[in-house]
């Protein structure tokens, strides 16, 4: 598994699998709290991989890593909040 | 003064201050008319006084921009101005055209003025801020083109610094977007749509490039911070300005017949418009803190910091207060808008011009900076005018909130004039704050005549 030593390759494989899962959830018509949380978690994991392994911020100054990951957390939480309101 | 031709800036600055005084006097008349409705009626009805007030504002700011550019460009380009003579000819042309226009507003009824000046050939008059008769509008175009030619040629033959390039882009944009003032279709929605291409894309677009460029220039001169550092931050700030401000035009497209999606686009992008102003404030304070020299002109530095803070408060914070569509639905076209307009124009554009004048005038008069006594007086005027505008804004905001409450939100909405009578107290307080502003302005002018010979030219 020489290929998997490159973080970019690993990230690509995980991103692909994650996309299939999201697409599959859509195909089976998943709806409601569990599927919303699941999809947000998947999106969060994917976004984080892009930030750390594609943008190569893993070894960047902490401030920038926090800014970008913070963006991801902020956006996911706001979306979650809005969906939570809509379920009430 | 490094170049002889920079001297042409002087008459521009003097004219700017003179017209500024006129603007404030008419502002006080308007303020009084708000509470004593028949004051000067029918000799100077409100609409005429307002036209004079706003048009003088625009013209003195333009004089300031031109003067600033004539002062700055030779120094930046390290060469004499392409044609100082052209600059002087254009100065008198613009001043006389401006004066005639104001006389026209005051001397004859507006409809007669329109008739006399050929409004029937091309109908462009009678729209807010663009009330100028056709010959004046054409005159503005001619002056602007002559001015741009002069400035551009100077830059082309000399050094092309980032500061000059940003200034040139701002000035060319100013001229280009003014052309929309000649487009006045019968369809009132289209009319308003493109009217904003002049008005919004000026004050929330290209004028901010001029503002940023002036600020960067004065900061380089007074702080001694590396040009490279200041210029790259200038680029970052003007980028932020334009990426938020251009689509931000949408905040004017909520209720004038344009599609509803503008409520989202306009709200989202204009909500981001405070960011560049905030960046500008941080930038100004940062550069002053990192200064490598103590410039003798403390007053100019004060104006530079002041314009950052006040532009952020006036344009950024007060703009944001009513820019989101659900809020704007209730506040649109009330005193809230007036409050925002006063602080934003003063904070961003009046102050940046005063900053440039404060920096350049002593040098044009043969000294690095004014005497201590004169600077103290100037700083007093800074605080008096700035505090006065803060209070004008606060009183108008209070009036606006009450107006919105009584006339728009209430279960039994009151008629416009009934609501106005109920908030008259705030208009009185605004007028007193306006009087304080005038005192500040008088002190400002006085500072030019106080002991100026203590320091030698640098």
């Amino acid at each position, binding site marked *: 598994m020489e290929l998997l030593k490159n973080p970019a390759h690993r990230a690509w494989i995980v991103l692909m699998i994650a996309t299939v899962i999201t697409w599959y959830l859509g195909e089976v018509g998943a709806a409601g709290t569990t599927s919303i949380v699941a999809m947000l978690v998947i999106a969060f994991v994917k976004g984080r991989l892009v930030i750390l392994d594609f943008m190569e911020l893993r070894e960047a100054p902490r401030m920038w890593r926090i800014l970008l990951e913070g963006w991801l957390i902020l956006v996911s939480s706001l979306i979650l909040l809005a969906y939570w309101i809509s379920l009430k | 003064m490094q170049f002889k031709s920079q001297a042409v800036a002087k008459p521009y600055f003097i004219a700017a201050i003179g017209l500024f005084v006129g603007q404030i006097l008419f502002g006080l008349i308007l303020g009084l008319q708000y509470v004593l409705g028949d004051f000067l009626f029918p000799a100077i009805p409100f609409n005429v006084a307002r036209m004079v007030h706003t048009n003088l504002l625009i013209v003195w700011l333009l004089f300031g921009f031109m003067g600033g550019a004539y002062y700055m460009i030779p120094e930046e380009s390290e060469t004499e101005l392409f044609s100082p003579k052209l600059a002087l000819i254009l100065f008198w042309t613009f001043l006389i055209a401006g004066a005639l226009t104001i006389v026209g507003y005051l001397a004859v009824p507006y409809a007669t003025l329109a008739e006399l000046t050929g409004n029937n050939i091309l109908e462009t008059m009678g729209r807010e801020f663009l009330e100028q008769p056709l010959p004046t509008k054409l005159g503005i175009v001619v002056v602007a083109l002559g001015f741009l030619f002069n400035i551009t040629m100077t830059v082309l033959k000399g050094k092309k610094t980032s500061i000059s390039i940003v200034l040139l882009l701002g000035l060319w944009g100013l001229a280009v977007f003014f052309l929309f003032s000649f487009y006045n279709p019968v369809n*009132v929605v289209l009319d308003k749509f493109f009217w904003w291409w002049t008005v919004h894309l000026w004050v929330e677009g290209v004028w901010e490039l001029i503002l940023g460029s002036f600020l960067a220039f004065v900061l380089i001169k007074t702080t001694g911070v590396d040009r490279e550092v200041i210029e*790259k931050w200038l680029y970052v700030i003007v980028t932020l300005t334009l990426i938020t401000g251009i689509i931000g035009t949408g905040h004017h497209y909520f209720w004038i017949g344009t599609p509803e999606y503008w409520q989202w686009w306009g709200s989202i992008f204009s909500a981001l418009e405070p960011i560049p102003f905030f960046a500008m404030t941080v930038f100004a304070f940062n550069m002053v803190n990192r200064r490598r020299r103590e410039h003798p002109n403390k007053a100019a530095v004060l104006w530079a910091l002041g314009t950052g803070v006040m532009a952020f408060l006036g344009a950024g914070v007060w703009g944001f207060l009513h820019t989101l569509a659900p809020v704007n639905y209730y506040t649109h076209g009330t005193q809230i808008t007036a409050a925002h307009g006063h602080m934003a124009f003063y904070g961003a554009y009046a102050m940046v011009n005063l900053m440039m004048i404060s920096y350049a005038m002593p040098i044009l008069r043969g000294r690095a900076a004014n005497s201590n006594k004169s600077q103290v007086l100037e700083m007093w005027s800074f605080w008096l005018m700035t505090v006065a505008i803060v209070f004008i804004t606060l009183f108008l905001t209070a009036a606006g909130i009450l107006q919105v409450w009584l006339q728009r939100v209430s279960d039994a909405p009151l008629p416009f004039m009934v609501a106005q009578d109920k908030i008259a107290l705030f208009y009185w307080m605004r007028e007193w704050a306006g009087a304080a502003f005038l005192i500040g302005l008088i002190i400002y002018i006085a500072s030019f005549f106080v002991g100026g010979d203590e320091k030698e030219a640098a």
Partner: protein
Amino acid sequence: MSGAFTKSMARNIFYGGTIFFFLLFLALSFDTHSQLPKRDMRANITPQIAEGKKLWEVNNCIGCHTLMGEGAYFAPELGNVVVRYGDEGVKAFIQSRPKEGIPGRRSMPQFNFTDEQLNAIVAFLKHVNSINDANWPPNSQG
């Protein structure tokens, strides 16, 4: 904070970003223009309405009033004035302004309009009222 920060990169982003957002603005404006005919009632514009708009302009009405919320804030909103007072009410109001104003009150000048001009102004104001402006103002008081 590390990382290089060059002026040339900042400049390129300035140009690129500006062009990008201006193009986006043009695209939105283009879409707006395709939607406007459904909202601005341009098909109903008659020469009389055009005449009314001209009178509105050459008498600088916007120097005191607002129209769809834009203008001066010294006098009432007129985009919906025909709802408030009716056609005849608007005409009667304009005609009855005293030449010397009303003592102590905000006063509107007497413009000495002919009947034809008054009809044109009312036609224009009715046209403005018919424009789909997303339900603004919130109530008839403007």
